[in-house]
């Protein structure tokens, strides 16, 4: 792959051990930066509100994204609909630092994701399992995140996706070389990427947790499961005390293995976001099922 792709993977490496926070205004972006976020995701409505309001969710107003770019010095990410390559061209023109081709927005293509190799700007994509992750990487994604179930404050789906990823990676590692061709067929992923996983026991790009993280303990749990860092969407600005909660989740990601520290960090954070139990959501309304 080309030099720019490597540089894009490198930026994701710099975000590791950090928290990427959803923000909807320059003021929220400042709060996130001051709390120690390693990047912000600029969007008009957090997933919890998108879920509540329904309708078609699209990429944000460029003016809103520019406002957030001007407010902070950390990397600014923004979302486009699955398959919507023109929304991505627009974000590239705005020079956002990372594009999230996201199932949180309403998909724009019934079959395809964006051919991300056409772009210089880096992309992060969601994945429920290894096959999905490798397909996104083949299309040019330089960072992966679990899908989880966005806007719920329920971490169970993020855990499911990370555990699935880990067990599938372990299975690929245990295979004999000649078995990899069949594994590639089953995963619907390119053989070269399956061979990479077999050799290294890891994805070739950074893998973050996302979708339902609401507490420092949720974030630390995802880190202990092997994630490189954490996205928090609605979990911060839908909680009682965003400033405090944001800083606490940042600390929890640094000290994810230190239970004593986590106990201290988790104290007196105020109300978490209310949340929706994933099992109470109708199957056709699950965001994690979007994408191919």
């Amino acid at each position, binding site marked *: 792959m080309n030099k720019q792709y490597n540089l894009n993977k490198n930026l994701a490496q*710099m975000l590791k051990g950090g928290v990427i926070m959803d923000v909807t205004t320059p003021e929220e972006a400042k709060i996130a930066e001051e709390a*120690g976020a*390693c990047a912000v995701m600029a969007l008009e409505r957090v997933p919890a509100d998108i879920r509540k309001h329904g309708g078609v969710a699209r990429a944000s107003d460029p003016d809103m994204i520019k406002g957030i770019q001007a407010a902070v010095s950390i990397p600014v990410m923004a979302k486009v609909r699955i398959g919507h390559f023109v929304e991505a061209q627009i974000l590239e023109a705005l020079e956002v630092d990372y594009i999230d081709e996201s199932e949180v927005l309403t998909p724009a293509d019934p079959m395809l994701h964006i051919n991300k190799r056409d772009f210089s700007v880096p992309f992060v994509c969601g994945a429920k399992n290894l096959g999905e992750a490798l397909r996104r990487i083949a299309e040019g994604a330089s960072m992966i995140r679990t899908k989880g179930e966005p806007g719920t404050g329920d971490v169970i789906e993020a855990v499911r996706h990370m555990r699935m990823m880990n067990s599938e990676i372990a299975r690929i590692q245990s295979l004999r070389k000649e078995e990899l061709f069949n594994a590639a067929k089953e995963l619907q992923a390119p053989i070269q990427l399956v061979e990479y996983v077999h050799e290294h026991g890891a994805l070739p790009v950074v893998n973050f947790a996302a979708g339902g993280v609401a507490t420092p303990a949720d974030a630390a749990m995802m880190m202990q499961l092997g994630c490189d860092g954490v996205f928090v969407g609605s979990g911060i600005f839908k909680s009682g005390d965003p400033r405090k909660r944001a800083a606490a989740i940042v600390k929890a990601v640094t000290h994810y293995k230190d239970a004593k520290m986590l106990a201290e960090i988790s104290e007196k954070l105020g109300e978490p976001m209310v949340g929706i139990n994933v099992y109470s959501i109708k199957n056709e309304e699950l965001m994690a099922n979007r994408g191919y």
Partner: protein
Amino acid sequence: MKKIGVLALQGAFREHVEKIEELGYQAIEVRKSEDLEDIDGIILPGGESTAMGRLLSDFRMKAPLIEKIKSGMPVWGTCAGMILLAKELEDDATVHLGVMDIVVKRNAYGRQIASFEVDEVIERISDEAIPLVFIRAPYIVALGQEVELIHSVDGNIVAARQENMLVTAFHPELTDNKKCHAYFLKIVEDFACTQKKKSV
């Protein structure tokens, strides 16, 4: 065996740990001030300087780290690490550790789309060209009298040294080349040597 600390609050610390271990040294991930006690040198990795700066304060590691550096412990800041060490940032009132007499411009090249890689010879470090990877990188806009310029790219200062403090705007930990790490470890060895002489 010499122990090299790698600040592990946020960022690409694992890549530094791997390089240190490949060169036959022990790497210690530093997350608390206690972790600073038993190390012979420390690397401040790339990542987000605002995030690391905030965590250094919150975990009360700033003062002990400054003291260690002032007492001569070798330190190497890559990218965000360089920002942490700088005495002054351009267009930004923030000062993190403020121990090195340099003025640094953050995101000096612009956004991610301006990130780049070049191969250049840095005489002090290697006879051959080595890959220099710049990710949303800073550079140095002014050097104090005590600070030695090590390398510039296109007229911008990207590597410098002031006694026990080394800074690079680029990321040797992201490449397969170990020359920069070997150079820093030499600084650590030399420092340990002078300490030994002092104690004798």
